[in-house]
């Protein structure tokens, strides 16, 4: 019981991060039908941005409140990463729109390689640690054999930030005219243009939102692990993509649900079976789910009356 609760907390924390990244995959796929392979590296890049600004704020500018520093870092990381997301779409994907289907996919792989190499050259190949940011924990209860079930402040911050930003994001997409235009382009780009929607700008917006949420994930990832390296885009990226597919690619709630499930599978598998095979477990479950539900858990069936 005690280990179970602890793993549940850990899994949901990790799953929050995957879910935030997965939204970027699912939104871009929804609107232009492309898997943005560079998205994982955008996430990694944002973690570096967060790291750099955290160090600048705390050591150079002497901000002593970690909470304040984190908040500023989060905002800066979101803004700068959004700019990257916008620029990547503008430079590497938009010129290829209307080209053959695989062209943007290949371009995305190119961007992915560029980003990880760029960070490797600019920041070095070794892991970059931060000084520990937040160490406090709340002991929820004491289990058998003196095992403490704990909820760390870090985890609270991660889950709360995810919940708040997802709510804001949900409101944006469901209730504002920008979000409505975004959904319209996703469902029928040609029609949206006939109604006066600037489709290119809406696609840019989608990349900006995806990158901003990836930056939230990057900042929280750094907070959680306290270390980041240039190749940290790949594995979390693939897992978030898996989460998006598992939840039903194109579905926003599906992305979040998929993220939580992947996070839970990974932590429970590590705790009860073997840590080496945690990734195999996550991907196997994906394969099994897709055999029985080809369009994912919350995905819509391919055929649809239009």
């Amino acid at each position: 019981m005690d280990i179970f609760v602890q793993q549940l907390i850990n899994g949901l924390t990790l799953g929050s991060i995957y879910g935030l990244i997965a939204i970027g995959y699912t939104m871009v796929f929804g609107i232009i039908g492309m898997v943005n392979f560079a998205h994982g590296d955008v996430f990694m890049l944002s973690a570096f941005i967060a790291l750099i600004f955290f160090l600048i704020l705390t050591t150079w500018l002497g901000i002593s409140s970690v909470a304040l520093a984190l908040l500023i870092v989060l905002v800066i990381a979101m803004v700068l990463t959004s700019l990257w997301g916008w620029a990547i779409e503008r430079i590497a994907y938009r010129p290829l729109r209307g080209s053959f289907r695989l062209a943007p996919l290949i371009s995305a792989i190119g961007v992915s390689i560029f980003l990880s190499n760029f960070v490797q050259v600019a920041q070095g190949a070794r892991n970059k640690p931060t000084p520990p940011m937040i160490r406090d924990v709340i002991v929820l209860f004491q289990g058998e054999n003196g095992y403490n079930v704990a909820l760390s402040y870090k985890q609270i911050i991660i889950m709360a930030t995810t919940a708040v930003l997802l709510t804001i994001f949900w409101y944006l997409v469901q209730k504002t005219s920008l979000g409505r235009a975004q959904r319209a382009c996703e469902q029928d780009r040609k029609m949206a243009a006939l109604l006066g929607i600037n489709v290119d700008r809406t696609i840019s917006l989608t990349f900006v939102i995806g990158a901003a949420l990836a930056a939230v994930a990057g900042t929280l990832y750094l907070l959680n692990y306290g270390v980041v390296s240039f190749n940290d885009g790949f594995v979390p990226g693939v897992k978030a993509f898996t989460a998006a597919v598992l939840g039903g690619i194109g579905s926003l709630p599906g992305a979040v649900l998929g993220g939580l499930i992947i996070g839970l599978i990974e932590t429970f598998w590590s705790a009860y079976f073997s840590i080496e095979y945690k990734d195999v477990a996550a991907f196997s479950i994906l394969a099994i789910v897709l055999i029985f539900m080809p369009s994912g858990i919350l995905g819509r069936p391919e055929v649809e009356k239009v």
Partner: protein
Amino acid sequence: MSAGTSNPMQSHQSAAAATHQPLLSVRGVKTYYGNIIALKGVDMDVNEGEIVTLIGANGAGKSTLMMTIFGNPRAREGTITYAGRDITKMPTHDIARLSIAQSPEGRRIFPRMTVFENLQMGASINGLAHFDQDLERVCTLFPRLKERLQQRGGTLSGGEQQMLAIARALMSRPKLLLLDEPSLGLAPLIVKQIFTIIKELNEKDGMTVFLVEQNAYHALKLAHRGYVMVTGNITLSGTGKELLENPQVRAAYLEGGHH
């Protein structure tokens, strides 16, 4: 079946003649899909206050002309002017902002948006400025939509989707309304309703309508003027009445068609 409706042609003919330049003017337009030519040099005009219809067989290029006016696909040759402005190379979303609206072929309702949201999308260009007022207006025109505002577009019946497509186009308060086969696949009663509404929009609100139809009889009855398109060319034009009486038109589009 619409023998009872009087032909409003005469009164409108003079109104149209009073405006010096056509509201919409298409000159020598050629449109291609890849290397295949779909419009082979089309000329046509729509004057302010008119209902103009374009009839022709399946695959003639009617929908292509409708979409070419909106720049998607773009005319490779020729010019399109609207209210005196050359719109041939204008981006589609900017053309929509000139108060031209289209209910396109296939209706293209946003299937996972509610009826209400679809209507909101229709009002995008004026930022929902007079949304409530316009919503009420289209709900009066199409009472069926009013009961279904929270239903998802994809779950509507064909007739309801058609009503929604027209209502959505009306939400932008267009001066020129393009309708691509509004009667396709609908029950005769609903077709009649829709044609009555088109007539009302034209007569009461002074809206200019460009109507593509396969249902040639009804369309020509309703319209002030008409064009006939055959494989990418305009082959005939004239008043609705003239075309209705034209033996070629009768043979190709009317015999055995209605009743």
